[in-house]
């Protein structure tokens, strides 16, 4: 049972990291990234390939971050003039290009067979359940660092400019902000977090293939950001946990309703997830937690 919970917690951390990145890119800067699963795949494959080539796992993870940062900056740069739906299409196209690359460049990625036997960090230190707990500790540390990174950006003047760009980029520009530079940096900062998520995914599963990086990754990330409250990092954490509880918790439906067959239980599960989201959007469309706002007036009367 502890093993199961450890695994679930690691899933939550990985999906929360992706949500954290999306919350920076879309939640704050207003840049729709539907291709987030493509960047996630790049992070996982770079970390996996580097580790398999004998690079120490920490360095492999850093290489993954560098790769996702550079690719994110490039995608933001070439789609500089695209907004909203058009940016969504461009990022989706990027992710599709990544998927096709992973499937077809067999010499590098193993194609549909994927990459088996990715080395894990600190694998000599512990084994079995102890290793699972050690990996959980590593994941929590990585998440804490990324969360601090995102939160420091959110409360800084940098985050303020991102929110202004999301609201009205012409106004931000009129007030002296170089919109392109901020967009590229916001996308790259999110890309860094996705690189960490991809590395953790590769190291935890030790086997990766293209089917693990589908559009569902993007869908869960958007669900987490919307449920948590666009722009709030604490909210995102609550949102990511809620989405995972909903997804995992509904697996046990069958145990409580033995009169359902497997097909009915699976359908009911999807219905419950959908109803949960719709109820949330009706009764709390702004999400669980409001966006960060500077409160500076107190004590300055």
């Amino acid at each position: 049972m502890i093993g199961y919970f450890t695994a679930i917690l690691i899933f939550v951390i990985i999906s929360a990291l992706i949500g954290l990145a999306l919350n920076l890119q879309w939640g704050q800067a207003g840049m729709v990234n539907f291709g987030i699963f493509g960047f996630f795949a790049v992070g996982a494959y770079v970390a996996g390939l580097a580790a398999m080539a004998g690079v120490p796992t920490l360095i492999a993870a850093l290489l993954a971050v560098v790769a996702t940062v550079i690719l994110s900056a490039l995608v933001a740069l070439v789609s500089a003039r695209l907004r909203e739906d058009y940016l969504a299409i461009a990022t989706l196209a990027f992710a599709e290009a990544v998927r096709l690359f992973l499937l077809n460049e067999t010499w590098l990625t193993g194609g549909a067979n994927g990459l088996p036997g990715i080395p894990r960090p600190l694998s000599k230190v512990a084994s079995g359940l102890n290793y699972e707990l050690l990996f959980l500790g590593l994941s929590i540390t990585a998440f804490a660092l990324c969360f601090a990174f995102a939160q420091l950006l959110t409360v800084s003047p940098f985050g303020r400019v991102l929110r202004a760009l999301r609201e009205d980029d012409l106004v931000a520009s009129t007030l002296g902000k170089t919109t392109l530079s901020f967009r590229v940096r916001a996308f790259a900062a999110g890309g860094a977090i996705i690189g960490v998520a991809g590395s953790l995914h590769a190291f935890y599963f030790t086997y990766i293939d293209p089917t693990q990086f589908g559009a569902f990754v993007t869908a869960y990330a958007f669900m987490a950001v919307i449920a948590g409250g666009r722009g709030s990092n604490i909210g995102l954490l609550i949102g990511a946990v809620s989405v995972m509880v909903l997804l995992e918790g509904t697996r046990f439906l069958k145990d409580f309703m033995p009169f359902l067959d497997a097909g009915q239980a699976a359908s009911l599960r999807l219905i419950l997830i959908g109803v949960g989201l719709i109820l949330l959007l009706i009764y709390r469309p702004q999400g669980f937690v409001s966006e960060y706002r500077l409160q500076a007036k107190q004590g300055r009367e």
Partner: protein
Amino acid sequence: MLKISSLTKTFGAFRALNIGQINIPKGQVTGIVGPNGAGKTTLFNTVGGAFRPDGGSVTLDGVDITGLAPHKLAYQGLVRTFQISRDLGALTILENLLLARPNQSGEGIAAALFSRSRIRAEEEKAIEHARALLRRVDLWRLADQSAANLSGGQKKLLEVLRAMMLSPKVILLDEPAAGVAPTMEGVLVDFILSLKAEGVTFAIVEHDMEMIERLCDSVYVMTEGHEMMHGSFHEVTTDPRVLEAYLGSMV
């Protein structure tokens, strides 16, 4: 100070702007009036960097600023406001002002992560600057509220305040009286005049003639993309050609 010469802007075959010479003198409020479709907002969009001009030049204190992007104009000392207020509703009133402060090192990622004490000191200064401005128009009491909650007139004030955070030489005001309650209009006029007394230069596009009369040192009348006359409010409003421009377009 702000000199607009031979500025043209065409959209397809339609020449929306065909300016001869418009001068906005330093420390004055210059009005730009004219019937709907005369090209007043196009003039602001072209001078303010939203559109690229097809010809002509704009200089500010002798520096050529023709066709510069809005963020570069802001650093040259020219800021504009918008006909329909474009408040950043999700930001607080104070954040709207802080955003506009130039040269903030906290807008860099590395500084945001590692130079927290420097940023805090800069923010303190920025907040003092913003507070001084907000207090002048009695908006400091609302500083931490969302800008979305402000009334139409307060939003117009906020736009002027935000512009003032950049300590600009010239502010282009596009229809400051549109959608503003009469009492707030008085506050807005008094505030603009007090800024003018401090040496800020204004160009104002406006339909409200009472406001033009109270604010402007001189007035340009535009028709069909061209400035047809320039003079005092009295000269302009008694000129038969101006009446024809307004009424003639109705025939």
